[in-house]
């Protein structure tokens, strides 16, 4: 997964990057399964790997990339960028070493079959569902995104 991530940001060819990202995403779906989150895993496969990545590949193919490949791949602030990232990494390491004792070791086993229903209950149920409103907002967001994307990409409106 990490290898996939590294490949994503280092490949010259955008298609190769996309393939690496797909690998990463699928690996992540596997990790979700390990975390007893099969519904999220399924959504991950359908939406990310099946939907978003196809979109990416589409765009990569629409815009010709041959010329870009000959150009410099990294921008001028690459040193600064890596330094910033390293600083962030240092922060993470510090936090995790400090907080290591907070997390319990050991495995928890749950009934997988309840997962989807549980997620759905949180989203839709009248009594426990606390995310109903957010869900509607998300659908609105998607609508806005559709309109935005169409407006942006259309040649003549």
């Amino acid at each position: 997964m990490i290898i996939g991530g590294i490949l994503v940001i280092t490949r010259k060819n955008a298609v190769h990057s996309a393939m690496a990202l797909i690998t990463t995403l699928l690996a992540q779906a596997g990790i979700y399964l390990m975390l007893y989150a099969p519904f999220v895993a399924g959504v991950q496969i359908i939406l990310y790997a099946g939907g978003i990545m196809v979109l990416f590949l589409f765009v990569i193919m629409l815009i010709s990339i041959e010329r870009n490949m000959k150009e410099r791949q990294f921008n001028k602030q690459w040193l600064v960028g890596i330094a910033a990232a390293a600083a962030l990494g240092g922060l993470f390491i510090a936090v995790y070493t400090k907080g290591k004792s907070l997390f319990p070791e050991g495995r928890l086993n749950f009934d997988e079959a309840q997962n989807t229903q549980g997620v759905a209950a949180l989203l839709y149920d009248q009594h426990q569902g606390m995310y109903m409103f957010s869900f509607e907002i998300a659908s609105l967001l998607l609508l806005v995104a559709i309109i935005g994307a169409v407006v942006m990409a259309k040649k003549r409106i």
Partner: protein
Amino acid sequence: MLHISTLHYLVLGAALFLLGVIGVLTRRNVVIVLMSIELILNAVNLNLVAFSRYWQGIHGPTALHGQVFAIFVITDAAAEAAVGLGILIAFFRNKETVNIDEVNLLKW
């Protein structure tokens, strides 16, 4: 046998996040920058799901708030990718490049 605890997932998430950050900050190709953003979102998702499981350990199997959040994040990522790529196409049509350094005009 080493048991995988929440921390391991967090570390993995952090690593992915860092890779994403590096990608966003250093690459010039807009497509790859967008893909790096996806990577960041995924890292966050991983954390959310891992925490959700941690939370389940404390509050019982129906405490799936993290997973619900992850689904929201995926939704958001889809919207972001669509709009981002739309902008990219519009941009490419006008300037015939996908180089992010060239994106320096507020209007054309």
